[in-house]
């Protein structure tokens, strides 16, 4: 479970300070599916990086499974990323020189599992996303949708509790987008993951339990009108915006 309180993130850009996050309060329960929308440059990705232990807030607390990510050492953040958090990126971010199977295995390297177990688990993860037959192919030999499936397998092979996706369908056509979203929905449901997706695409956002809107570094969260888990009212922000 995530509990963000008064999170700010400032960047220095030349002589100016950019307030990427401007006091974000947010609670994400285990198993939640939250979609975050908003204009470019308003802090969506910054929030996702803080949730993913890739960055620290300038102020505020980020409670995750009883730890404050804002105060952990770099090595501890690395450990959290390795064990608990899966990432999916818009550009897939596969290692171009490694095969699909080897790309999936890279997620298990920090966990110190044996080579045989690594190969076995990677193979099963690829089978789960329907790419067992393409295990030996290089990313350049796969379509965009297939590459994103490999990325999903890589994110999930270590059995994380949280899956963070940044524009996961941004580089895909509509048909492939629906295919990937259906797959993510299935996996979220089967694995009881906490899923946070940043997307411009309102169709993607509409499939989430809850949607948040980032504007000028502030977050407003509400239940998605088409969510399978509709809630009463429109304000679902546990910690109402006070800024």
């Amino acid at each position, binding site marked *: 479970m995530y509990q963000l309180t008064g999170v700010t993130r400032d960047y220095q850009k030349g002589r100016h300070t950019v307030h990427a996050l401007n006091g974000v309060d947010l609670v994400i329960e285990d198993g939640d599916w939250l979609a975050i929308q908003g204009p470019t440059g308003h802090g969506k990705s910054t929030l996702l990086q803080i949730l*993913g232990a890739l960055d620290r807030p300038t102020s505020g607390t980020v409670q995750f499974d009883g730890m404050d990510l804002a105060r952990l050492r770099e090595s501890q953040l690395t450990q959290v990323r390795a064990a608990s958090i899966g990432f999916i*990126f818009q550009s897939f971010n596969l290692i171009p020189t*490694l095969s699909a199977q*080897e790309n999936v295995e890279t997620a298990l390297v920090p966990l110190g599992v044996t080579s045989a177990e690594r190969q076995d688990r990677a193979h099963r993860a690829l089978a789960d996303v329907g790419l067992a037959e393409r295990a030996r192919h290089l990313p350049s030999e796969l379509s965009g949708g297939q590459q994103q499936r490999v990325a999903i397998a890589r994110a999930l092979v270590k059995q994380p509790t949280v899956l963070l996706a940044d524009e996961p369908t941004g580089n895909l056509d509509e048909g492939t987008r629906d295919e990937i979203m259906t797959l993510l929905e299935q996996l979220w449901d089967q694995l009881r993951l906490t899923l946070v997706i940043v997307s411009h695409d309102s169709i993607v956002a509409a499939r989430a339990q809850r949607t948040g809107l980032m504007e000028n570094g502030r977050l407003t969260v509400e239940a998605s009108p088409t969510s399978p888990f509709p809630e009463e009212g429109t304000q679902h922000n546990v910690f109402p915006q006070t800024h």
Partner: protein
Amino acid sequence: MFFTYLRRELRRRMRQAIFIALGLALGIGLVITVIAASSGVSSSQGTVLHSLYGVGTDINVTQTPTAGSGGPTRFGFGGGNSGSKPQSGTSFSRSVLTSGGLGTLQSSAVTTVSGLKNVSAAAGALTLTDLKLSGTINAGGSGTGQGGAASAPGGRSSIKSSSFSVTGVDLANGSLGPLSSGKITSGQNFGSSDSTSNVAVVDANYAKAQNLKTGSTFQVAGKKFTVIGIVSVAQGSTSADVYIPLARAQALASMTNEVNTIYVSAASAADISAVSSEISGALPKATVTTSSDLASEVTGSLSSASSLANNLGKWLAVAVLVAAFGLASLLTVSAVSRRVREFGTLKALGWRNRRILSQIMGEALAIGLIGGAAGVALGVAGAALVQALAPPLTATTATSAAAGPGGAGGPGGGAGFARAAQSATHTVSVHLTAPVTLGAILLAVVLALAGGLVAGSFGGWRAVRLRPAAALARVV
């Protein structure tokens, strides 16, 4: 995963990897070639010094001739009345041993030197020239001797001259001195009982020219000597034509208890400079020359090759190596910069900085080792090329017994004849070898690893500094 990732990455960056490896190879190859050439030059210098001054000699002691010494050698005519006016038609043939203006030391100096601390052995030698004049005096009969003149211009006399060099060898210390670098090719060397005998060991080249063999007899200063051995001394050495026992040389030249060179061997190489100072103290008027002094006196193409290998070659190799290291580092940093997204992703997956660093270092070291292997091959080829193409080198050195001012060639009178001082320089021709030693190859491996480490460190530093969020911000 480490090796798979490393191999695939190197394959992807093959052109760049080859470029970096070739740069390192060029630097390392040059270092090996220069080391080999330098070692060859040192070896050639050693050969030259050994042939010129004898194996095992650390220090040479000579005496600077005093001004005016070494005046004309006089030949007597007419019933032994030297300088008397000969009658027309007189035939003559005279042979004398002369020191040719070389400074002399008392034999007691040898004992003094051998008694000094840290001196393991000392041997005296007397270098002389056997001059022979023969001919007929036609008329007038007087001439003015000129240094080195082959005929007396004062009359129309027909005079022939010939000479050969004779060295008196200290038989008590045969392992040191002028014969030490020689190899007896026929007959035998002197024995301790030969010190008062008229026996000689003849240089192989001179023996061939004079058709002398073991058992042959010939004349030294008019005395009959028997050849007991033929000696071959390394390449064009300054060796004498004929070696005879020191005592005989002293007697024939009327130079009893005199020598003109003392060969000294120090107890160890570290003692040479101390021994040199001690000798200077004990024999203040003597010229003390150490082997390193002798090396610095060597001139000619060998000396040029030496300075080429030690100066230009060394700095060229260092410059190329530094350039190769710099190039490898720049290209590695550039490659890391192009892989920012990749490393950001790996950090997002939970890869520790140490793991990413070792991956980059591994790639750089692999390129370094490939460069090192190619460098060794280039170096061996370069050394072989130097050996094959290098022209024969010559070394010219001043003899330590050069004549001093006024030492020779003074005006003579009557039928006098003066010979110039012994040749002031000697030239030795040597073939340059360029041996590639195991040490040089080990150095190449170390350099290759160092090149890889330097390049990898820069690249790794760049990757480790990278914040994962910043790396991913470029793509999200």
